[in-house]
């Protein structure tokens, strides 16, 4: 009995409620004529789409930089890579990998500057990261208008310049991961093998990294910076590494998202992408100073499951679209819960 109680306390009521709500939605689905196989397929697909962006939260949480509200920097690097790969007419797997390769230098440079900044403002990272992200998005809005892209599928038709708000990747690298070794069962169910393998690969690399010498040092910095400094760990360097990795993963994450979603969304589109990633890892059981692969996995499935199931099931039940409101309340409620929770001293 006591075990159960501590388990609930550790896991937190909001997560348990969300978990049972999701189960309830899945049970209700057949009764309101929502196909279960199509729903599960959707959830898997959306899990793959978003998981790497959620994974990007891990290194910064571990190194004590808190939730990366400035993930937008990584996302914008990814957008730069993706648009450049289209500009250079890279197709197929080459286009996809090319997008990541082209995004990498931006992510590294931006991440480095971002790290320099955050190292100067320890303790205030989250609020500052949020506003740095916002202002950078706005800066890039101007850039998207004036950068000299000229691939006709990307620029506005009548002006011949300025990138469109949404650019299709069809004919370039649409669903390049999703369709790799995809298993199709029946009319509605597709198992996106390639996508999940790719996500699995990154999660595994992150898992390995956290157990490497650098990764351990990074975790030490997050747990107790003074202690880490006393044992000879360069605190600022470890934080810099974690921030650069996080930014890079943000870039990869958005490219993976785009190849599955089918469109590159520019201008103000990156800003609403950040909060779901933050909410997802928190729903998965992470706190603002501790996160693991399990948190990423569980959180993304729960959150994306909720986003997939509520529109279809709740709408059929109540004959009204409440999904948006539920999304706002759940994701922000979760972040709020994490922020107001007393930080537990690790045993």
């Amino acid at each position: 009995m006591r075990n159960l109680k501590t388990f609930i306390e550790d896991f937190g009521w909001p997560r348990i409620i969300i978990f049972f709500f999701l189960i309830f939605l899945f049970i209700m689905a057949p009764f309101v004529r929502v196909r279960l196989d199509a729903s599960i397929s959707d959830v898997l697909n959306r899990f793959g789409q978003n998981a790497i962006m959620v994974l990007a939260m891990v290194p910064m949480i571990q190194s004590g930089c808190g939730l990366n509200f400035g993930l937008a920097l990584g996302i914008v690097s990814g957008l730069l890579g993706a648009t450049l790969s289209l500009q250079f007419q890279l197709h197929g797997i080459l286009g996809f990998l090319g997008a990541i390769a082209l995004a990498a230098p931006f992510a590294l440079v931006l991440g480095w500057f971002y790290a320099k900044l955050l190292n100067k403002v320890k303790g205030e990272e989250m609020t500052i990261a949020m506003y740095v992200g916002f202002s950078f998005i706005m800066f890039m809005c101007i850039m998207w208008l004036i950068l000299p892209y000229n691939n006709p599928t990307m620029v506005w038709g009548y002006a011949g310049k300025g990138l469109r708000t949404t650019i299709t990747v069809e004919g370039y690298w649409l669903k390049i991961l999703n369709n790799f070794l995809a298993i199709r069962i029946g009319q509605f169910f597709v198992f996106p093998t390639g996508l999940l393998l790719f996500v699995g690969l990154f999660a595994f690399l992150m898992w390995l990294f956290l157990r490497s010498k650098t990764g351990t040092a990074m975790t030490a910095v997050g747990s107790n910076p003074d202690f880490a400094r006393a044992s000879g760990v360069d605190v600022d360097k470890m934080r810099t590494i974690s921030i650069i990795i996080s930014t890079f993963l943000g870039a990869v994450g958005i490219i993976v998202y785009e190849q599955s979603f089918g469109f590159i969304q520019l201008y103000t589109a990156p800003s609403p992408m950040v909060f779901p990633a933050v909410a997802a890892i928190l729903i998965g059981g992470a706190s603002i100073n501790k996160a693991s692969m399990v948190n990423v996995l569980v959180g993304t499935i729960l959150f994306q499951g909720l986003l997939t199931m509520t529109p279809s099931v709740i709408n059929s039940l109540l004959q009204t679209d409440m999904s948006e409101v539920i999304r706002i309340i759940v994701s922000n409620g979760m972040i709020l819960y994490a922020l107001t929770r007393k930080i537990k001293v690790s045993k």
Partner: protein
Amino acid sequence: MSAQKKFVKFFSQYAVVIIFVMITVAAIPPSGLSIKYILQEIITRLGRNSFLVLALLLPIYAGMGLNFGMTLGAMAGQVGLIFAVNFGISNWHGLLFALLVGLPISVFLGWICGLVMNRAKGREMVTGYILAFFINGIYQFFVMYMLGSVIPMGNRAIVLSRGYGIRNTLNLESVRQSLDNILVLRVGGYAVPVVTFIIIALLCIFIVWFKKTKLGQDMRAVGQDMVVAEAAGIPVEKTRIIAIIISTVLACAGQIIFLQNMGNLATYNAHDQTGFFAVAAILVGGASVTHASIANVFIGVTLLHSMFVVSPLAGQKLFGSAMIGEYFRQFIGYGVIALSLVLYAWRTRKAAADARLGLRGGTNGSTKVSAVKNGANGAAGNGGQA
């Protein structure tokens, strides 16, 4: 302190203001707007926005940073206005009614906000920001699903055609500029909404008076150091909650003043940018996370809004695209907030580092001692606040 050091300190303290003045002045000629037009716009916008920005002051005094949770009050004000329009109460009576409806809601929301922030000490700003989003969800739920179904709405014109939920845009014709137009003074071609400015002036007097009361003094003590305040017998948590409640109530009234001037209400997103604009304004006016004065509010609103007036047209003329000007002003708005927060955090750390160095007994002790004092005075190290 050497002249150079003084200059550096002055610059780091007023960097945001200086940069802002330069950008705005540079943007005026290409915008092609006349000074008279810009001045009239500024007068209008001072009346429209000052009250909202003043709502930020008390939480800053109480050491809770920039109250992004003020959006809660704005939402309460909007609910009040929706009911005023529903009951067809026109003119300034409608505004008063809206305030009466909004008041209890904003007190309640402010109380919630205070409780939440007390659980997140040291992270008030980001918490307030997220709380505003969270309550936004509840607001959407209330306005979109409850109004017209659970709570009957007499005025069918404001309800969506499906039978419940309020329309996306609410026409505030009945109360439009009813406060501004009670008495309009025309001086040299400029129209000045006298009553609005009187209300703003009264609020300023209230704030000055409030700072001198026992509660106001407690608030500043809490803002300086919570531990010391607690030891001195000040109920820290209660004082913080009161500061937030007052701020939320003021934001409620401020949003009503703002919307009566605008003349229509974007039901589901009028409050989205409220906190952002208010915070940007006070920071542009030279305030920091721990220090703000009434002067900062008016300087800030004037500067921020003169830039908002000129930038779209300047963007149009300079780059051939109004969108660039639009994006630019948002970039500047967010950038200003980021820059102020960075400068503030950076100064805090520097003050703390200087203080540590002072304790170790460095070579030139005198400056170190002053650094220690500054550090204790208020983390930003720019004590002596009006």
